[in-house]
């Protein structure tokens, strides 16, 4: 893997810092136009904020437990955000929509189960017998496995399709997901297996009851987000962005596009593994294809909602989606009404609204 040379970053930063808003410099809007767009965005943002406050006030007035709703939304949204973060990272760095992101997490989680079972697949994992330290060590191992797996997918599948259309790569990642699900079925059988949480039970904070696992997931999400933000401020991160933006130009500056691609996939694989371990912990159980069947679609929705090329947007989108789903559940229960698939309906209404006003997502930018 070739690293960026030390005499290049200044030039690279200059290139990366220039936002490409169109096909060429001449396409860039003028200052007044940009100010107008900015003002319009602010108005939309204010309208959204007011709508959310009014909605929350109405729910409180109707006697709904908004605090519990926020906690429930955080529990679901944090996992969505974790998966969406990996999707956004890979997309930003390689322009590939990775449908294998879920299974790059389920697979390492199954390896954790295998180790906990001591290789005896007829056995049973008793979550109460798994210590925090052991699970932490295994989670670390899972991250490594996830990263290696993702890099392998990149090298043996994605890189070989470098010259093909984005749709081809997308379909290839879906194929990888199916392959991994098949491997899980063959290796671990079609049965649900118990999976431990780092902490079980719940804790009271700010007058709210938080499931301990939700706090763990939220904490890991915060740490992962901070590390990623930090990464993009380093030379390595800048090289990563540069190679995503213009691989040819990046190569001319001594950045190996292949290495940067593998780096992005490796980080995304590690995030996927974390998501797998934490996602399996949500319901204390794991089945083949768990992350794909349970979390991938909401995570993709979250990534689009936040801006598919924005890791920060993925986190915001995931958390927002969790809150929207929780709000839909709380509202239907509180009002005693029956709306078919209210959480999904609400999520897609919000997605459509966001797309209508911000086609690139909440935090998405032209890349």
């Amino acid at each position, binding site marked *: 893997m070739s690293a960026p040379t030390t005499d290049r970053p200044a030039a690279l930063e200059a290139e990366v810092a220039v936002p490409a808003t169109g*096909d060429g410099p001449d396409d860039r809007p003028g200052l007044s136009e940009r100010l107008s767009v900015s003002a319009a965005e602010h108005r939309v943002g204010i309208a959204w904020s007011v709508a959310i406050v009014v909605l929350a006030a109405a729910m409180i007035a109707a006697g709904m*437990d908004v605090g*519990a*709703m926020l*906690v*429930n*939304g955080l*529990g*679901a949204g944090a996992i969505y955000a974790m998966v969406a973060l990996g999707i956004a990272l890979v997309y930003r760095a390689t322009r590939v*929509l990775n*449908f294998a992101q879920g299974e790059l997490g389920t697979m390492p989680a199954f390896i954790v189960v295998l180790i906990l079972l001591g290789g005896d697949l007829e056995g*049973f994992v008793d979550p109460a017998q798994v210590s925090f330290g052991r699970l932490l060590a295994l989670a670390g191992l899972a991250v490594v496995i996830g990263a290696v797996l993702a890099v392998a997918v990149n090298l043996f599948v994605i890189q070989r399709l470098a010259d093909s259309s*984005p*749709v081809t790569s*997308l*379909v290839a990642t*879906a194929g990888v997901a*199916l392959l991994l*699900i*098949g491997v899980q*079925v*063959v290796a671990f*059988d*079609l*049965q*649900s297996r*118990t999976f431990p949480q780092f902490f079980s039970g*719940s804790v009271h904070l700010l007058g709210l*009851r938080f*499931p301990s696992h939700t706090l763990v997931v939220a904490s890991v999400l915060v740490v992962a987000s901070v590390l990623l933000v930090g990464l993009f401020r380093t030379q390595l991160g800048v090289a990563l962005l540069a190679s995503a933006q213009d691989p040819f130009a990046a190569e001319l500056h001594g950045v190996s596009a292949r290495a940067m691609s593998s780096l992005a996939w490796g980080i995304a694989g590690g995030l996927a593994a974390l998501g797998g371990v934490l996602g399996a912990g949500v*319901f204390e*159980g794991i*089945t*083949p*294809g768990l992350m*794909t*069947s*349970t979390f*991938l*679609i909401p995570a*993709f929705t979250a990534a*689009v909602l936040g801006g*598919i*090329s924005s890791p920060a947007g993925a986190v915001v989108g995931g958390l927002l989606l*969790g809150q929207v*789903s*929780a709000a839909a*559940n*709380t509202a239907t*229960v509180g009002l*005693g009404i*029956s709306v*078919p*698939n*209210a*959480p*999904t309906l609400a999520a897609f209404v919000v997605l459509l609204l966001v797309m209508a006003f911000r*086609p*690139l997502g909440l935090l998405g930018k*032209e890349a």
Partner: protein
Amino acid sequence: MRATNSMRVLAVPLVLALTLLACGQKPGVHVTGGPLAQGASAGSTVGAERGSVAEDGTVLEPGTEEDAVLAEGELGVGEPGADESAAVADTGAGGGTDADSGTSDQSAGPGASAAPASEGQSAGGGGARTPQGSDRTGVTDTSITLAIHAPVTGAAPLPSTSFEKSRDLYWRWVTEGKGEKVLGREKVEVIFADDRYDPNSAIQVCRNLAAKAFLLMGGGGTDQIQACGRRMGQERVPYFSAGVTETGLEGNPWYFAASMTYKQQTELLAQYVKKNFPGKKVGAIVTQTPNFNDAVAGWEAAVKRHGLPYTTTHRHPKGDTTWYSTLSADLEKKGAEVVFILTSPLDYIRFAQTAEADFQYVGVGVSKGLNDVLRSGCPHVGKGTFFSPFPALETAGKLDPDFQKAASKFGVAADDIAWAIWGASKLQHAAFKAYEKTFGNDLTREDFRAIVEASGRVSTGVYPDVNYRPDNHFGGTGVHVLKADCGSKKYKDAGTFKTGF
């Protein structure tokens, strides 16, 4: 420009996502009926056979009782011929009586309850009557092919390969283990297919299976069973399942519930709750599908009848994973201690794991009484008590010793799914024996259907007795009660063949 391209590209993954969710099928768990095109072709063949029925002059005159029950043109009932009706009448006097007389001996082994098999009749051998039907799909001179479908992959599967492994255990025991023939045939083959927990997928799967198999059996999943049951009614294929919904299946002459429907069971469940949890507040969690509306209506009516203190019935969105906390908290807030839960096993486990309250779960589902639920759901589901069409595995040795012997002989795990299929197969065997007595070995779907619906009370010793009538194919008469035991991670019997509490 790039943004537009991005949005176009994003449209593809959303479509692909839906496809991906429907995928993940286990290798070897496949639709043996071949591709869809083959199913369509087979459907044409069946149609041609029906045509011949009509040409033979066996078409029933309109205005039959079945026509009155069913929407016109919805199901394949326009053609049960006058002769078929006659066959019913004859069976009622003959085979039906024999079958009835056999029901008292539940311990005499497989099929003992039905009329005894005719000795030495070869395929096409004579019975008291000549078959009037012509659809012999899945029947050859040497074998009969049956089919089972169940969700083993998909959004909320029954995560087990036991369906595939144990699908033909009973029939192998009868033909290979005991050396008996079934309707003069030496072999009964059973094919299995995964319906992926999706009604649309299930319909395709069932169409393909129906092109190869004589009859179909639904192994689990109400929506899939209902979809397939309706479709098989249109295609005039005998279809069996444990009792689930009545919606859309009522009046379907080709559908047979092998146990009480959920709606029928709710009366017994209300009695059970009143007796075992007196004074405790009751609530309900039910999946939001129209196919559970009849069960909910039956449950709420039964609750009112028995004066149970009731909180509310929550319907949860199907295929969503964000509702558990909200609904469990609301039930807890309203003081519910006993929760009637009618969901997929996966949703039940997740709900129990998420709920802070230690609810007493009760229910009528078929699949929540499977030991796999305890294996992955304990200790959270340790207080579950469910009605079931089949008794606990611990009782299998007592009710039918052949089951353990067969499992041992053929190297199949003697688990509860195998036990459930064993019981259902015994019911079908009883029907085949009744058929043999009336029609000999020339097996047709039309005549088989007529025999089953007129068979009267049939006992298998595994499922509670069934008592079909031409105007009622929901023939279940009782339930077994299974109580969770997280120590052994197996359900224990808390009552067998119960008809009241």
